[in-house]
């Protein structure tokens, strides 16, 4: 009897111990409720005249988002869905922590949608500034990175948007839709990091500008050379660059047509770049693009119902895109002397011996190489109608 009782008691103690363990082991050491952190959605990095870091964060207020997007007004009174704070510091991480002197709760960075760099910072120290964002465990490597042109990151982050309660989400969505236009580029943090590491390719980062009281525009590219901003590409050059980099989802390309204009919807595009060698020396930069398009609109006259018409249009389309690519390439070669296309990477891969001796002056070699840009366009379909309205008898 006593033995049985003792066994039972032992079992009870064990059970109690295990249950206590369950309580203790269920959470993290530094577990925090959503209400105990500040959910950062946008980060702006700037540099002051004195070389200090000016950090701006946009913090979302989960509670107020729910009440504004939900039915009716919450009785609590209107709280703003986001707040924006700036802080000056010696280093980025330093500024993040020092900011807590003015901000209530610890900043949580995994939710950051956009990282906006100022022009000044980009011109001075891209590589140095991004070290923290590579190193910190909270940072999402897939966040969008943008460079603000003619406007400070703080200004952009302080904007309110009509389209989304959280401005940073609005910005990142305009970046996402670049795959339908090609005039911008979605640059994720990891893309920038990879390019910075690579000797054979210089980084580019999407550009953001102000487009009115509460709207932004994400078009164009910021061109870097050895970790420093050297210039910009305009939307058309950007699209040429995107065509060459095989990064076009779809795009509308306008071409001249008989008595008017046509808009071609490019819906598939594949590209390859390479460097041709002659006698162990690079002789020519190659860009090959194959794309498929539909006639999306014909704002002019002229029938389309003959195959010859279509092949003539294909040639015009090819020429238009070829020009855009050439513009981007020429700018990279002549103006910036920066191999943003990654031709150097191709040389490194397929001609490692040459690369070994040429890698340090590659940008110079790249700049004086002639280019052979081949665009092969196929116009597949004309949509629901074939010919535009033509009244002739």
């Amino acid at each position, binding site marked *: 009897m006593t033995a049985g009782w003792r066994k039972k008691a032992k079992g009870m103690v064990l059970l109690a111990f295990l249950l206590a363990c369950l309580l203790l082991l269920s959470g993290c050491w*530094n577990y925090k409720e959503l209400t105990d952190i500040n959910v950062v959605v946008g980060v702006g990095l700037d540099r002051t005249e004195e070389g200090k870091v000016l950090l701006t964060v946009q913090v979302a207020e989960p509670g107020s988002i729910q009440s504004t997007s939900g039915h009716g007004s919450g009785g609590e009174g209107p709280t703003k869905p986001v707040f924006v704070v700036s802080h000056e510091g010696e280093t980025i991480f330093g500024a993040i922590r020092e900011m807590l002197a003015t901000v209530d709760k610890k900043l949580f960075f995994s939710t950051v949608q956009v990282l906006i760099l100022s022009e000044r910072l980009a011109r001075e120290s891209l590589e140095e500034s991004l070290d923290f964002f590579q190193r910190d465990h909270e940072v999402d*490597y897939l966040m969008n990175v943008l460079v603000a042109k003619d406007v400070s990151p703080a200004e952009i982050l302080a904007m309110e948007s009509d389209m989304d309660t959280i401005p940073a989400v609005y910005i990142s969505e305009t970046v996402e839709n670049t795959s339908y236009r090609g005039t911008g580029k979605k640059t994720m943090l990891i893309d920038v990091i990879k390019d910075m590491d690579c000797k054979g390719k210089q980084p580019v980062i999407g550009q953001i500008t102000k487009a009115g009281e509460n709207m932004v525009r994400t078009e164009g590219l910021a061109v870097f050379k050895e970790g420093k901003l050297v210039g910009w590409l305009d939307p058309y050059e950007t699209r040429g660059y995107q065509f060459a980099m095989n990064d076009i989802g779809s795009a509308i390309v306008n071409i001249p047509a008989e008595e008017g204009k046509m808009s071609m919807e490019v819906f598939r595009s594949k590209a390859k770049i390479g460097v041709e060698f002659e006698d162990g020396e690079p002789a020519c930069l190659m860009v090959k693009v194959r794309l498929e398009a539909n006639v999306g609109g014909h704002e002019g006259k002229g029938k389309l119902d003959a195959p010859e018409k279509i092949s003539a249009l294909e040639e015009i389309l090819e020429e238009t895109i070829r020009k855009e690519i050439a513009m981007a390439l020429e700018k990279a070669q002549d103006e910036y002397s920066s191999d943003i296309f990654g031709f150097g990477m191709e040389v490194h891969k397929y001609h490692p011996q040459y690369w070994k001796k040429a890698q340090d002056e590659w940008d110079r070699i790249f700049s004086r190489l002639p280019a052979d840009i081949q665009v092969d366009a196929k116009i597949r379909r004309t949509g629901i109608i074939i010919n535009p309205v033509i009244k002739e008898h």
Partner: protein
Amino acid sequence: MMEKTQISWIQLFLLLSGFHIGSTVLLSPSAGAGRDAWLAMILGGAGGTLLMWSYAVLSMLNPSKTLVEILRDRLGKIAGTILSFLYVWYFIHLASLVFRDFGEFLCTTTYLETPMVVVIGLFAVVLLYTVNSGIEVLGRLSELLVPVIPVAISIISFSLFTINDFTAVLPILENGLMPVLKGAFGAITFPYGETVAFLMLFPHLNRKDKLKKTVVISAVLSTLLGLLVFFRDLFVIGGDLIGRSTFIPHLTSLLIPEFNVEPLLDINLLIGGGIKISVCVYAAAKALCQITGVQDYRGFTRAVLTFAVVLAIWAYDSVLELFAWTQKVYGFYVIPFQVLIPLLLLLLSLIRKGKPQGEVPDKEGNNNAEAVNA
């Protein structure tokens, strides 16, 4: 008697594979070779498989004998005992290294504010329970858990299938053969040579005739899995960034859009690392119990584990010190344990086999003949 406990060849296979993948899921011993590491892994895999095969042969030449017994048989009681003590040290040290890798990883990526001693200590408590449950439980546990590892690796790999650059392996052998050879050497000592701890476990295998096959298949499959992981990482993050990251597979797992698979990596680490530490602790405790002539190894497990935990925390001040030591010193430090002593024993065993003397032939004498023929 303890020797009655037995594991099947499939359990041994899974234990070996889990042991192998345990740390390599985090750290790549061939990483120094950059984008050529896959060559180093193949070379190292070939050498490592040969080394593991020779451990199996050694075990078959001395059937039902653990490393300690083989050492004492071949080298005499005094020298054998001294070397056995050194092996005990090595097994404990190995366990502590795995503890530390494990702790560093978790404290770098997930539990930044949790003291490492808590992370490692809690893990050690679970492992103490595992090891004390016996080698059969460990075997069955491996059947349950080790298959999770390739599944988790596949999930991560397939999620990343769209973001890749298959030309990232180029150029091949950019910096010549030296880094590759160094990487291959590193791969042989870590993790292949570390399976020397299994010399304490091989006697538990129920079908001795399958030992060599099991060891070789495990070595080859683990190598292939390692290659898969490496190629995935290379294709996804490229040859340049690979050299700069602390834990390469972790960085890769961060790049999966929309969902967070980091826990899968942690799971792999817990399973693989857990098996590795359990095997090391078991080997050390078993060796101690055979040296001292105690019946049950369980008396030593607590001491061994505690020592390993303390050593893990105390031996290195920083993650960089740990990495530098593993890269520069470890390869040479382990040569006697992994190569010299086992090969010496193998040689002595073969010589003795050539001219049998004195001892009564073992029950598995016929198997021994096979081993020599093979």
